């Protein structure tokens, strides 16, 4: 530990000074991680085996009742576990052609501009944009237009479809960017080589392009998945409190029914689920694209 030989910028000097400097460098981050990550996690772990105080909140106890009560939120878990992958998949289906076009088809001088156009929506509040969708999908938006052409009483807002649309909308850039990067890095010669060897464009796409962009796809997919697992705003605004995610259930438990212990138990379960999902995504990604490191050649 003291030698620090692995570092490219290790400084000479005695071991004591070296250790002091290391401690100084790591100190703030350590403190931050301990106070705002480890401590809170310990706190909710302790809370999760506690009881709800009579007026709400927390009261010390040791019981696994909160975990036993998890099935009471089965629907919320189910919604999340269905809509999060579905949302990520829908996002992927929309994002891939865009990333593909940007990386491989768009004229060179347009590429940067188009890429910037993908990123710019990030700079307007997601809340505002989702609110705009509330308007578009709400009674004065598309349904009003439809009524104009004689299709009455169409309801779009507060449906799972609206939530899915909001998800695709909100996370599209996050999906496009990693896929774009992996496609952009793709050696064009490989595509020519494939065509040269007799592969039709479709089989070139499936055999080469898609396979080699999988790391980007998996990055985007797991990024969106992880964010969706904790999603609160989109179901709230576009689902009208009807399409309930785990995030909504959590907020509800802390800000309405004030059942902190149960909320803590759900939070811990959610973290566990997230970790499992991420590890699985990682595993799949390495399996599918075992040759990731070859890029450097």
């Amino acid at each position, binding site marked *: 530990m003291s030698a620090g030989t692995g570092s490219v910028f290790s400084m000479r000097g005695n071991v004591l000074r070296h250790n002091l400097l290391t401690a100084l460098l790591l100190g703030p981050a350590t403190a931050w991680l301990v106070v705002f990550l480890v401590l809170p996690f310990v706190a909710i772990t302790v809370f999760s085996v506690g009881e*709800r105080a*009579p*007026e*709400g*909140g927390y009261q010390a106890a040791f019981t696994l009742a909160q975990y036993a009560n998890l099935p*009471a*939120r089965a*629907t*919320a878990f189910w919604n999340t576990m269905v809509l999060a992958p579905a949302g990520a998949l829908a996002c992927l289906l929309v994002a891939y052609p865009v990333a593909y076009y940007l990386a491989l088809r768009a004229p060179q001088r347009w590429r940067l501009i188009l890429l910037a156009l993908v990123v710019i929506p990030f700079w307007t509040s997601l809340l505002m944009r989702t609110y705009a969708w509330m308007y578009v999908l*709400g*009674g*004065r938006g598309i*349904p009003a237009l439809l009524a104009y052409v004689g299709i009455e*009483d169409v*309801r779009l*807002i*507060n449906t799972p479809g609206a939530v899915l649309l909001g998800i695709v909308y909100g996370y599209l850039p996050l999906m496009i960017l990693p896929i774009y990067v992996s496609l952009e890095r793709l050696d064009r010669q490989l595509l020519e080589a494939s065509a040269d060897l007799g592969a039709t464009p479709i089989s070139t796409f499936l055999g080469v392009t898609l396979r080699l962009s999988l790391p980007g796809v998996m990055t985007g997919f797991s990024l969106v998945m992880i964010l969706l697992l904790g999603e609160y705003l989109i179901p709230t605004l576009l689902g*009208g*409190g*009807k399409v*309930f995610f785990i995030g*909504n*259930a959590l907020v*509800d*438990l*802390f*800000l*309405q*029914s*004030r*059942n902190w212990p149960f909320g803590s138990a759900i939070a811990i379960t959610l973290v566990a689920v997230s970790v499992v999902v991420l590890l699985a995504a990682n595993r799949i990604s390495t399996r599918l694209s075992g040759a990731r490191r070859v890029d450097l050649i």
Partner: protein
Amino acid sequence: MSKSYRDGLPISPEKFVDQLMRLKRGSIGRREFLGLTGLGLATAVMARELGIMPSPAFAQEGLGDRMSIATWPNYHDPATFENFKAETGVAVEVNVFGSNEEMLAKLQAGASGWSLFVPTNYTISTYKKLGIIEALDMAKLANYDGSQEDPRFTGEGTIDGVTYAVPKNWGTTGFAVNTKKLTKPMTSWKEFWDTAMAEGDGRTMVHDYQLTTIGNALKYFGFSFNSLKPDELAKAEELLLKVKPHLFAVSSDYQPSMRAGDAWMTMCWTNDGAQLHRDIPEIAYVLGKEGGEIWTDFYAIPKDAPNKPAGYALLNYLMNPKVAVKEHLANGAPSTDARVNALLPKEVLDNPILYPAAELLKPLEFGAAATLTDPGRAELMARFKSA
């Protein structure tokens, strides 16, 4: 007292060690030590500079330049706050809540930041018990005249002779119906719930609020609005879970959806019913004949309110009948204050939405304090929402 630590600065190392020894021997108080070493001052200054903590309660009577109030959707005349600002220089931020539980949760989590909030009658005893609301200093509320308040509605603000909250207005909880879309006349909660699963499918809203949503579901079976009985609640839950897939939304802010035509029917408070009917005449306000809620909203000040003088000032301002009358015209709920009623135009006083017939009022119940904290009702509501 604050004199001691300023005088003690700076302190020499010898003196410091000396003091430390004395502290160890117990011949010096901790406060004295903190003061002497200047630690207290340093912490206080740093804390304030870094903005880690809000400045401690205002020592002087200055009102500051801003405050915030926690209240209900569409509940005030925006002009009220603009006028208040013009008069006092204090700008008012309005935070909107959908349920008393949400207000309570925010206060329990600490540092709500409100200088004034609008709790409903049945919650005040719990707030007092938890020690999170201020016993009001009536000397600062010159505009309030208890003798003019309607005693039917105002009792719960005072506990053991101490006033914790003063009334704003009262009202009822019924439902609003867009009669162009749902033409069948309705008069009961039974019809409300049944319609929600039939003609009103996908177009009905219920409150994001356990008291009224569970209470009115209980009414479907003729149980008490405030019931805590497990078997009765179980039946209410059954109904709610059956209705859930047919709802448009679970939200206490139903005006926008009703106005946009997305929702055709919603649980509704008097004031919203009055506002909706005023602007869109085909939206009717119905009181379930089985009963339901009658309520009074109060003004109260949280104990940890950041700018209490401003809170008192605004409260006193709102108690001015001339101000209050404009509030009531905008809000649409009936006042508890005789002085205000005297100023209201006749058509308001004749409005059946505000002042329903006696036989409709009779079965209504005030919310019971126990419903606010009952874990069974809280969890039932949460299950309903997450279903």
